[in-house]
């Protein structure tokens, strides 16, 4: 009468996923590579959200970052250099039930695939795009990438590159209809997890710029940032990436930043004195292309045949 259940037995889920459920085997990145942190964070998020492995589509291009799908137990697509985003969009177009993650790098996304970078932001289909930015081409053995700092000697530019690097987050913010841009670092697992988890909850394309150590080729690039937390500016806001007490204790420089404030987010992305980490910009109202691409799903065969006959009628004489 008062709604008390008659059956007191616990509802046991048919399947429960552990971290092992997402384990695709031994990752073969170099020892000390930042990519391990992303793999671990994504597996934890999948576990915490209990996403069935068969509903996961892990998409990548080519490069160290793009080995990511091989190390997940999930459906994966390790495709062509620079072309992860069109494939990911194609997957999402007619499969709203799939959870799509993209792993790409500074060369893959911001150089050879730069055209798709802009348009994927504009399509704003529901997926997380992780840009692993290690400031170098790693898999091809240390060539200058669009994010390589000036002065860094590479095999293609022994005396350093000629032009200043681009910033992944700031550039992404310049794209039309972009709906989510965050930045984090591989060496802070708590912030990395919180950022990717926030990205995963956003409906739309969530770009996450991840500064990633490459101990083999660019070990020194992020060393100062990693050793000295004072060089980092932690963005806080109730609608941003959650910053727990540990994070707040670690990063004493903090700024409350409303992720709806585009101009402030853009300025923060470009700040030189400190690296701003957290949610730079979010617009939950940006139109999503997948709201259109899924139209027509669920039409029956009979309806399709009838529509087809009507189309033939148009050419009938």
């Amino acid at each position, binding site marked *: 009468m008062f709604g008390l259940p008659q059956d007191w037995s616990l509802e046991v889920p048919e399947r429960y996923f552990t971290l092992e459920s997402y384990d*695709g085997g031994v990752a073969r990145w170099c020892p000390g590579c930042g990519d391990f942190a992303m793999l671990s964070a994504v597996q934890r998020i999948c576990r915490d959200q209990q996403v*069935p*492995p*068969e*509903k996961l*589509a*892990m*998409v990548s291009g080519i490069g160290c970052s793009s080995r990511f*799908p*091989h190390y997940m*137990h*999930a*459906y*994966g*697509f*390790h*495709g*062509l250099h620079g*072309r992860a*985003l*069109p*494939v*990911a*969009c*194609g*997957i*999402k*177009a*007619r*499969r709203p*039930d*799939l959870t799509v993650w993209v792993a790409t790098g500074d060369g893959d996304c911001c150089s050879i695939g730069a*055209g*798709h970078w*802009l*348009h994927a932001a504009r399509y704003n289909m529901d997926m997380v795009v992780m840009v692993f930015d290690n400031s170098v081409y790693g898999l091809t053995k240390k060539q200058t990438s669009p994010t390589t700092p000036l002065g860094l000697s590479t095999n293609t530019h022994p005396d350093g590159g000629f032009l200043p690097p681009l910033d992944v987050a700031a550039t992404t913010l310049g794209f039309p209809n972009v709906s989510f841009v965050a930045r984090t670092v591989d060496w802070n697992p708590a912030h990395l997890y919180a950022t990717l988890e926030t990205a995963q909850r956003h409906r739309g394309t969530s770009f996450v710029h991840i500064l990633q150590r490459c101990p083999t080729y660019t070990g020194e690039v992020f060393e100062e940032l990693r050793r000295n937390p004072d060089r980092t500016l932690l963005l806080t806001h109730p609608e941003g990436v959650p910053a727990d007490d540990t994070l707040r204790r670690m990063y004493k420089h903090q700024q409350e930043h409303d992720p709806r404030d585009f101009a402030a987010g853009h300025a923060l992305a470009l700040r030189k004195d400190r690296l701003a980490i957290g949610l730079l910009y979010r617009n939950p109202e940006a139109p999503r292309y997948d709201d*259109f*691409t899924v*139209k*027509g*799903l*669920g*039409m029956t*065969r*009979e*309806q*399709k*045949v009838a*529509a*087809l*006959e*009507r*189309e*033939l009628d148009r*050419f*009938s*004489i």
Partner: protein
Amino acid sequence: MTVAPPAATTQPPRRTRQRVSERIVEIVSDSGEGAQKAGQTFGTVCAKLGNGVWTVEIIPAEIKPPARSRAGASGIRVRFGDHEITNRGDRADLVVAFNEQVLYGRIGSRAYRPGTIVLLESKWAEDPQPEVREQYATALGEFREQGLEVIELPLEKACLEIVGDARVGKNMFVVGLLCEVFGCDIERALAEVREVFGRKGEEVVRSNQELVRRGWAFAEAHVPYAWEVPAWRAGEPVLVMNGNQAVGLGIMAAGMEMVAMYPITPATSVSHYLGRALPVVGGFLHQAEDEIAAVGFAIGASYAGQTACTITSGPGLALKTEFLGLAVMAEIPLVVVVVQRGGPSTGLPTKVEQADLLATLFGAPGDSPKIVIAPATIEECFHFVVLARKLAEEFRGPVVVLTDANLATGVAPFPRPAIDPAWLAPPIDQTPWPTGIAPYDWDPETGLSARPIPGQRGGEYVVTGLAHTRGGKVAYDAFSNQEGCDMRSRKLAALARTLKPPRPHGAEAGELLVVGWGSTLGAIEEAVDLLRADGHSVASLHLRFLSPFEPGLAEIFGRFEKVMTVEINYSDDPAAPLITDETRRRAQLAQLLRERTLVDVDCWSTVPGQPLGPVQIAEQVRARLGAATTSPRGVV
């Protein structure tokens, strides 16, 4: 027919309506004068009256080329007859021209013969600009010298009695004129005008119908010729469309719900059709940011379970090459429609060529075996796309459908296909993947394997363009790479095993066999018929499967003394300087056939940017036969 009182001062001689088997008519104009709409309307009327019809557009590369320019000719050719018409034919019988300059390009393309009747707009003779008057007079003299029978007619003046702007009305006036000249039922023409303009409102319909009536009356009064082309078939339900529309309908009939493309001539009109029509059957047309993204998007959709299609032409095919290689390597079903145009590079965007065969087969790095099929008619454009999806899924890889600009813009009636619901793709399989089955569980004999689709529990695997094992794991060892290459190649042999040997047209054996592929079918077979009527021992063979080939080719070739291909692509003329049997670069199909059959296959191919005509082919074949007689049609 009531006899109207004389409407003009010069009454043409009384004419008798002559019964003919077929006629070729052209309407040529500046761009934007509606010649194509006029030709399509007239062609549809003919088709509805039971004629066999083939219409082909004459398209300038620019949207609005300068008026009265020789290269800017825009227009249409309509060939119709009392039998099935399968190609554009050779020289036109009757031309309606809105100005004299546009005729130069057509004459250069050998579209006319001595005796071709040209109904020419005469207003230019009184143009306010003296140079226009002079151009007109000069052209008139030149045309008549070349044997064209030019009849000057004040078409525009007659239109201006009904509409304010003759540029928008002249075309329907011409429809009426042609209907009278060929004795078509005017009620059919008026009904067709209602079909074409119905959406624009009653006023537009009435005004265009009036133009048709005026054109009819004008022809009665001023055109000294009249013909009748008897009907061929009537009553049978037929569809009239161009090859690109047929491709679009084929995509829908195949149940392909995702089409990703980037605009490129002459493939784009498929997407113009699908942009409206695909949502009607629950699909979506994705216009991607570039050619690469288009194929990537399609591959993504295919991977996720709905075999998708991408549509392009030569330059786009070049850009898609890397992704096609991935689809081969990772064994992802995909349908690629390539509407070929002239190349290399940007080449001849609006014009026909069959020059992407080798690029399609061998464009990708490494060994990249894929299925390539080529429809030969507009009807086949429809059915081959349906077939392509089936093949893509059954053989787990990309299937390229090679059409060309001739099929893309050609319009012909064909029997209405009975839609089979089994053509449509089934819903995406989401049942659990059977345990113990690898993602590339290759059958060692056929190379075939089933593929897990995202969402299938237990089938999780990673697609990779890297060499991989049956288990889908990256592997760089010699065994795995060899096995993968073997299995992907074996699929083509497995498909070939299911095909029947093609049947020659004309004869099963003889002196010379002409081999073709794609849109040249009608012209080649008509050429063979002409030659056989002349007593030559000639036959033709048309290939629909280009990779793998249909079986039995070497055996068929062995029954003929000589074998040659006829193709619209480049080959060295054997008589050209420096060209020897060793240095000669042969036509694309000829190269493949020589390799595959070890027969000394000769070729005649050319790159005029327009479809081949039967008489033109017959002349070339005759030269190979070493029997130089004049053509039965007396072509100059």
